[in-house]
């Protein structure tokens, strides 16, 4: 893992590629094109880019209308203002009628950094996965963000893509991407560790630290939170007996709960959720904020060790 790229940037560049092959793709943003990285699409296809101004609720419903005309809208803003402010528009005007709108929100999680707690969405995975029929994807690296963007254009129906502000390592191996199919990145018998987003690379690093101590964990990248890969989750929970989830999100409602929902009453295992412990984030350098909330590799390794 050497090269670094933010998943939001990989998303933005993938949109341009998509736009070249499919003229039904239109992109909407709420005055944040420079940050969500839809600016690349805006530059390449200005006639297919609609800036909706600082009015996210209207943007979601305009996207709903565009989708009924046979277009495939990709709607971007920050996770706080998309999944947060426009929640009900997404729920009632996009998901309820099963319109083909892709909600692609960047700046999720506490790694937003300096902007502080008001801008650090730690609830969006929960909000989106609660909506019936909503597909929820959290890519772990640039390659995956690109593939996820293409996969969203291929699938019919509403979907949420969560990307991060922070540049993160690109995995050396290029994994296949299929919506709803988790990727096992590392095999180990002592614990099954399910992670998503930025936490996948941190967990892989944690796995190295633990291996040096003779503890071997499986690391599973659950890029699709919904529909979750129940078969894979069950298999690795049974195999390892110890289950840990790692996410840059509240421990309430996110990946941890999605994994628990699969295992509850079916698999006997120890279970621990690593994430934001029901509190708001704060300003700071991204790395410092992640450390403050216990989401760096060494901290994750220590918590996994405690669980065994």
């Amino acid at each position, binding site marked *: 893992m050497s090269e670094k790229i933010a998943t939001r940037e990989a998303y933005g560049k993938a949109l341009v590629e998509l736009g070249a092959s499919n003229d039904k793709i*239109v992109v909407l943003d709420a005055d944040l094109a420079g940050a969500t990285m839809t600016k690349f699409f805006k530059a390449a296809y200005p*006639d*297919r880019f*609609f800036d*909706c*101004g600082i*009015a996210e*609720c*209207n943007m*979601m*419903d*305009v*996207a*709903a*209308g*565009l*989708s*009924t*005309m*046979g*277009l495939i*809208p990709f709607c971007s803003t920050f996770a706080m203002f998309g999944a947060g402010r426009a929640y*009900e*528009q997404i729920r*009632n*005007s996009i998901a*309820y*009628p*099963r319109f083909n709108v892709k909600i692609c929100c960047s700046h999720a999680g506490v790694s937003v950094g300096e902007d502080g707690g008001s801008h650090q969405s730690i609830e969006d995975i929960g909000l989106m996965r609660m909506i019936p029929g909503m597909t929820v994807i959290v890519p772990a690296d640039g390659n995956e963000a690109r593939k996820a963007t293409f996969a969203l254009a291929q699938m019919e129906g509403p979907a949420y893509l969560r990307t991060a502000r922070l540049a993160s390592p690109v995995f050396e191996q290029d994994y296949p991407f299929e919506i709803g199919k988790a990727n096992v990145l590392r095999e180990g018998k002592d614990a099954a560790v399910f992670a998503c987003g930025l936490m996948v690379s941190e967990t892989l690093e944690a796995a190295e630290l633990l291996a040096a101590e003779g503890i071997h964990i499986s690391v599973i990248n659950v890029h699709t939170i919904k529909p979750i890969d129940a078969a894979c989750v069950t298999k690795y929970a049974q195999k390892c007996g110890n289950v840990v989830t790692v996410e840059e999100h509240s421990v309430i409602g996110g990946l941890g709960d999605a994994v628990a929902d699969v295992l509850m009453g079916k698999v006997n295992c120890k279970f621990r959720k690593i994430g934001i412990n029901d509190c708001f984030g704060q300003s700071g350098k991204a790395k410092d904020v992640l450390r403050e909330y216990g989401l760096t590799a060494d901290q994750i390794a220590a918590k996994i060790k405690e669980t065994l």
Partner: protein
Amino acid sequence: MNTAELSCICKQVRRDIINMTANAGSGHPGGSLSATELMTTLFFRQMRIDPKNPKDPNRDRFVLSKGHSAPCYYAVLAERGFISRDEFTNFRQLHSILQGHPDCKKVPGVDASTGSLGQGCSIAVGMALGAKHQGQDVKVYTLLGDGECQEGQIWEAFMSAAHYKLDNLTVIIDNNGLQIDGRNDEVMSLGDLPAKLRAFGFDLHEIDGHDLDAIAAALDAPAASGKPKCILAHTVKGKGVSFMEDQVGWHGKAPNEEQRQQALKELED
């Protein structure tokens, strides 16, 4: 279709509204009755639609932003041949296609699921924008409540309709002056609504929303190039049923059997 024929259909629509809400024991007769002439004119005279091909990509679009006026919508759709009148008895019942608020997955002829106020106008903006973007000759109509205009998103939608120069969009406001808790002016005054609509960039037409000729004239008025049209239709909530007219209590209450009979008597041809 001439005015007399339209007027006759309006009577039938009103009877259906009364029967549907009375059968269900719930629903919104007041705002359905105020919207009757507006929606009947749209579906029978104005819009390019085909009940045999409800998904025709080149059809005109309609969004009932004030989704609680579903009884009026269903009555008009049935009269126009999109759905069977047999469905009326299932209105608001389990497994019915006729949900309390319109569900476009269930009802042929319904272009958007609505009911949560403030959202339909934005959806209509998206439709009009999509039509323009693809060079389609498609007109988009949306019907809003005046109380609904208290939602901030409505003004976001208005702003964007003007910004995108959507002269293929017609926003109709069913201005009956009442909402659940009382008169609009008591609950939350919209102030000088015509001035605000003009200021937001609309080509504004103010009419009597029960005058079929006036509705037709406003709809027929050529679009001002690059400007969305707004028809501010002054209406009476509960129109056509004497004891419901301009009575706030009939926003979301169904008539009982005695009231049904009295209403139907008043609505006889």
